[in-house]
């Protein structure tokens, strides 16, 4: 997986490509951790993400809670069909902000 970070004031966008799974989820977790401070809006762009597994869900949930707790928000963009189905069956469509 590759993660590209762009920052615009207090808004951070992480663009992911590849696969978000057991092996790569810690990379995203680390990237999010170092992006949290001072960030009001965290965008995760999934346009080039092939799929995610439950290891990825765990990181997304933790990040979503951290952003909400600090008064900010997290948004997930460009979700493909496979990822959308994972969010749907696990109820994450109702938990995360997916646009």
């Amino acid at each position, binding site marked *: 997986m590759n993660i590209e970070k762009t920052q615009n004031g207090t808004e951070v966008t992480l663009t992911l490509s590849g*696969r978000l*799974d*057991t*092996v790569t989820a810690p990379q995203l977790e680390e990237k999010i951790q170092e992006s949290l401070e001072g960030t009001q809006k965290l965008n995760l762009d999934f346009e080039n993400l*092939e*799929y*995610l*597994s*439950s*290891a990825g*869900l*765990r990181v997304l*949930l933790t990040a*979503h*809670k951290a952003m*909400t707790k600090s008064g900010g928000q997290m948004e997930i963009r460009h979700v493909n*069909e*496979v990822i959308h*189905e*994972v969010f749907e*069956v*696990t*109820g994450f469509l*109702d*938990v*995360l902000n997916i646009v």
Partner: protein
Amino acid sequence: MNELTVEATPENIEVITAFVDEQLERYDCPMKAQAQIDIAIDELFGNIVRYAYHPEVGSATVQVEVVNEPLAVVITFIDQGKPYDPLAKEDPNVTLSAEEREVGGLGIYIVKKSMNAITYEYKDGRNILKIRKDF
């Protein structure tokens, strides 16, 4: 049928995924089904890596077979670790809010929902977990 035996380590999730993908591509498996199978491998082989031999390391075998009528792929995960039936676990509550939520149990649930069949048996000291995905 093709099979591959490797040490159940995190690095080998990728090796197993590449091995299975190679078979699937040979049979023109649709991209969506392939992605769902890859997710299932991450969940199921990942479980073996995390729990089967913990804290020791052991080996695991993955078998891939393409069957007809309906055209489907059957993938079998075999390990000789602690007996563990992932299907015995109750399905997670997927209607909880972000605050109440736990991610435990979601992996096997995703697999159940995206595969056409999943079976488990413990036989001769081996955990045998089989999934079937119709093309």
